[in-house]
């Protein structure tokens, strides 16, 4: 803290002391909460004006198969059942299969959609209907070929532990517009992810920037409900007493932490009210619920999260990480992939349409993708079982899509070779994706830094280039 900042706080502090008798204690909490020095989530301007204000990251954990969803490779038919040329697979490291594994053509049918004519698999009819809003990136790549390291690299820019995640960096840079919800919210569906809490950790940033996990069952936020027998009125009275007593110790010790604690309790109380309101879908029109698939299986869990994501963004939450696990289809690809598509396709598309209808898509960046893709080669673990074929991890080339704030929809960026094995045009490393996401939010990724262990760290480590082609 600089001396000037300190002097300003001091002025305000004497003000409280002098007015302690007259000034309402609510006002104290309010003023403190609104103060940027005490509340690290106070909205802050980015480096330059930008379109996107919020991010919804639809993280498809495990590595969805781009070859069966986004990147049609008819040429694979010719190679089906044969190994790839040795020149291609030399020095290749794969998680499970051998480089000599034979090629598996995709049984999926691809069609062009929208005015742009981007191709989508027949398993993604709803997403396909948003083709003109979607920027399909077919040339993503990463270094990590196991899940947890891959997820660390995608979210923290490093396979080492302890670094802040994308959502933490964004709330660190921009703060949050919400007065009664956390700035960074995580929603999950399906099974747990490899990365678990490390996918939304604040790392070495203050823990205020950590993603708050909204839970599917019980309280949406952990410990949001008061204990048995404590109704809102009694909770309020308890908080009033608590605040008065805390204020007495504040006047004695003048420790700003106490003032900050009073503000935290007030925000907690507001969250207790805001949480149930957020989850109350009763005012959503039936058509909206239907569009997401909130009241039907198998879409329900993911649909609820997608709708929540819109409602969170609407209420000023800066970053929503929605994790769906798992797309890690080493075996029984056909069976498992269609299931995940049936769960996620409709709600994800509904989210784009709904954001658009609410005028939020221009200011909300939506990202869809996993930590890597899947091989054009087959993986078979149980030859004795029918339709056991799956695909192994493929970090060398995979697809992701983006839409909304700052992104030029209706286009494809990057190109893979005929077999979908390597990238032939516009390689986009996960660091480049991170740089581009930050750019859409108004940040020069090289200047969004935090000093730790004697060094200025950033999300993109020492790399990253903004992918201009993706931008509107």
């Amino acid at each position, binding site marked *: *803290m600089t*001396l000037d900042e*300190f002097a300003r706080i*001091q002025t305000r502090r004497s003000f409280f002391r002098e007015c302690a008798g007259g000034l309402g204690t609510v006002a104290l909490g309010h003023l403190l909460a609104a103060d940027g020095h005490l509340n690290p989530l106070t909205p802050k301007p980015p480096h330059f004006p930008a379109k996107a204000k919020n991010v919804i990251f639809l993280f498809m954990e495990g590595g969805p198969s781009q070859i069966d969803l986004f990147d049609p490779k008819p040429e694979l038919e010719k190679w089906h059942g044969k190994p790839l040329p040795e020149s291609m697979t030399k020095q290749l490291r794969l*998680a*499970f299969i*051998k480089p000599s594994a034979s090629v598996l053509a995709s049984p999926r049918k691809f069609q062009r959609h929208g005015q742009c004519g981007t191709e989508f698999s027949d398993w993604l009819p709803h997403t396909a209907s948003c083709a003109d809003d979607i920027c399909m990136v077919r040339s993503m790549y990463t270094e990590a070929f*196991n899940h947890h*390291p891959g997820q660390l690299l995608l979210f923290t820019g490093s396979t080492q*532990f*302890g670094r802040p995640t994308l959502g933490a960096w964004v709330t660190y840079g921009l703060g949050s517009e919400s007065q009664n919800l956390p700035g960074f919210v995580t929603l*999950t569906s399906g*099974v*747990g992810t*490899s*990365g*678990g*809490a*490390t996918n939304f950790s604040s790392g070495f940033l*203050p*823990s*205020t920037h950590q993603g708050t996990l909204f839970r599917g069952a*019980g*309280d949406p936020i*952990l*410990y*949001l*409900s008061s*204990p*048995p*027998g*404590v*109704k809102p009125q*009694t909770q309020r*009275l*308890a908080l009033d*007493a*608590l605040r008065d*007593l*805390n204020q*007495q*110790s*504040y006047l*004695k*010790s003048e*420790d700003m*932490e106490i003032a900050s*604690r009073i503000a*935290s*309790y007030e*925000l*907690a109380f507001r*969250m207790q009210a805001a949480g149930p309101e957020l989850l109350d879908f009763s005012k959503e029109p039936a058509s909206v619920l239907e569009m997401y698939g909130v009241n039907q299986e198998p879409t329900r869990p993911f649909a609820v999260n997608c709708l929540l994501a819109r409602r969170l963004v609407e209420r000023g939450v800066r970053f929503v990480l929605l994790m769906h*696990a798992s797309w890690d289809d080493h075996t029984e690809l056909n069976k498992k992939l269609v299931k995940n598509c049936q769960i996620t396709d409709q709600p994800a598309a509904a989210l784009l349409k709904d954001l658009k209808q609410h005028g939020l898509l221009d200011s909300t960046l939506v990202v869809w993708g996993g930590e890597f893709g899947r091989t054009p080669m087959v993986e078979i*673990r*149980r030859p*004795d079982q029918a339709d056991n074929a799956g695909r*192994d991890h493929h970090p060398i080339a995979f697809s992701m899509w983006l839409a909304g704030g700052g992104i030029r929809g209706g286009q494809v960026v990057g190109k893979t070779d005929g077999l979908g094995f390597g990238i032939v045009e516009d390689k986009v490393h996960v660091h480049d994706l991170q740089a581009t996401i930050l750019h859409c939010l108004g940040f020069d990724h090289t200047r969004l830094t935090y000093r730790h*262990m*004697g060094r200025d760290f950033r999300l993109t480590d020492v790399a990253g280039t903004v992918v201009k082609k993706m931008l509107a």
Partner: protein
Amino acid sequence: MSARTTAARAGAWLSSSLAAAALCLAAQPRVEFSRDVQPIFQKHCLACHGAQQQMSGLRLDRGENALRGGYSGPVIRPGDSAGSRLIRLVSGQEKGLVMPPAGARLTASETGALRAWIDQGATWPAPAPEGTTQAIRKPASSHWAFQPLRRSPPPAVRGRAWVRNAVDAFVLARLEAEGLEPSPEADKNTLIRRLSLDLTGLPPTPRQVADFLADNRPNAYEHVVDALLASPHYGEKWARHWLDLAQYADSDGYEKDRERPHAWRFRHWAIEALNRDLPFDQFTIEQLAGDLLPNAAVEQKVATGFLRNTLTNREAGVDRAEARFEQVVSRANTVGTVWLGLTVGCAQCHDHKYDPISQRDYYQLFAFFDNTEEADLDAPLPGELGPYWQARPEYYNKRNALLQQYRVPEVQAEWEKGILEAADQPGKRLEWDFAWTSMRAMFDGAEKLLRLDPGRRAQRQKDRLADYFVGAYGSVVNAAQIKELKFRELRDKLAELEAGFPAVSQAPAVEEQTGPSKTHLRLRGDYREKGVEVQPATPAVLPALSASPRPSRLDLARWLVTEAAPLTARVTVNRLWQDYFGRGLVRTSEDFGAQGERPSHPELLDWLAGALIDHGWSWKQAHRLIVASAAYRQSSAARPDLRGRDPDNVFLARQSRLRLPAELIRDSALASSGLLHPAIGGRSVKPPQPAGVSELSYSNSVRWKPTPGMERYRRGLYVHYQRTSPYPQMSNFDAPEANVACSRRRRSNTPLQALNLLNDPVFFEAAQGLAARVLREAPAGFAHRLDYAYQLCLGRPAGAEEKQRLARFLEEQIEILRKEPESAEALFPNRLEGIEPLEAAAWTALGRVLLNLDEFITRQ
């Protein structure tokens, strides 16, 4: 000669060498190093490979260094320009890398000159006399942290009356220099609560407070300190700080995040070692190399569990060599942070940018741990062996009979053959390939054991393998076969048998492999990119390690507390200071390097470090010294004159108010309410936690089965720490993630913490417990009861204003609860003899307020 003629000459060589590869070299014009080659190095190379900087370990301004090469090995092969990496790099023949990486490239004639020079033998004339004395210069550093301890006597001060011990002389000297007065001593209630929380992590009991207040002896304070240091809770409190550094957790980390059932043995060791005041030098040696001590006792081997707290990635597809490399990296980095206060990890990929630690230094440190393997040790706890030996014969009779009955030996032998075949010749049978990759990830030491003759396998190994086989056989045969074998039934029977068998506890430890392995520097930190071979050695900037040709892990451990003692002692006392004042004398307690902050009181830091060494590295003496000081005893209240002068309390004109760490918040609530289960040491416990927390883990594989009985009320340091889905209260209050060594916790202040304390069932139970305790134990009447509650929670009676405010609160509550009997019932469902249920409910509500006070979770 002009540049033009040099170029012309070089051009001539170039064309001649292109014209005829087999050209007799002697026929070429003789290259003169200083005239033809040195200027090229000067122009293109020396900015990065010169005296100032040696990127990738390469130095091209000295013949000896240049010919030795860099981290990737030699770059100049005299007589063989085509085989010299230097030439490939400057001429763009190396894939993905060209030198220089930026700026003008070498011209064809320049490259030609280099080629010719190399082909003619790469003669490097003897250097000028002034450069000859130091071939490999030790990087001298004037950085403060690398200097020997300066043992200045405590300075003379004007305010001698304030000084209680040497610490105060240093603190006061600084205050006087700044024109500041120290703060008055805190009142006795504050002092005993501060001491009790700092030394044992528990609030003082009303009895302890009363005794201290009544004790008018001049050394009453010292008596309290001695009693607290002698309390077994002391070991618990300070073990927790050490566990942060050790990155202790009860699970593997990464996606599988498998439980580590024996991890607690290391924690147990640490608590016990601290309680018996094992000196820090011995404490260090046992943890880093207890296994290598002559005639090492089991507990000394258990101490090496310190090194087992690294993460283990059991994703089946993981590259085993890479996973192991990362564990060794983690061990080297931890030693850097914990003992040297240096961010050595930066040098994994390149020479440290700020500190004199080269990449070579890094891999030399790494080499100490490169030959270390993980080993689970039979480490019986007291009382375990007798019942074990008694039960063993019958247990194995029954077990072997079961295995025979279900045909395990014969089927397992076939399976082992199949697995080994997959290991040796992958790609033949796909299901066996996968069975092998999975086994390798989940079963430590699988290959070695499979290749060991079954007759030579130890009983423990046989058991592990058979158990694994019975569980995993299904992945290679079809369901019908498994059904026929009835392995599911067998598993249940084996489990049942084992449950009744008094087994011997194991502990995670390490052991040294026989025959040293070769350690290579890894270019850019990538484990696949082997550079030059290195030997174990300590960083060149620090005092040398004098040991046999190849120093061992034990030599390193000893070096840390002998030759490197000044730095180790500084780093260690600084962390203690940090825990007592909220801020180290060096604020960046994890980084004593050039990018870290300089000490606020350098003489005091050195004096304390010296005192630590002089007192035989006794932890307790160091604690005693700090808490005895007048500096420590000051009031923590803010002072108007310090506001603008010293907002961060660098000068120490007062104490600091510190929010308690996560574990201590739990401990305080449990202790004040009387719920605490006070057992020392032992296994981790799983208190109840809301559904959905563990489900965050991979494939929802973590099962959180709450520990039955009163153990759920054990202290926070015993709460099972699952890395990918930690117990929420710990994360909410800034407990570290246990993925790297943590030397300094944050103290955040968030609404989630408020929700946690307000609504988490365990804190609600504490409020109920507090109410019951107050109503049962205090004399009747609001004032008595409230005073007692304040004594329990805050170690002091309630003030007049507080009484007034809470009396009002209690009345409000009673009024509401009278109208809402169901709320009263829910708040306090139990019955207390002689207490009106309504009153118990209202006091529960009041208890919640007390347990949420800022003062309750703060050490003042």
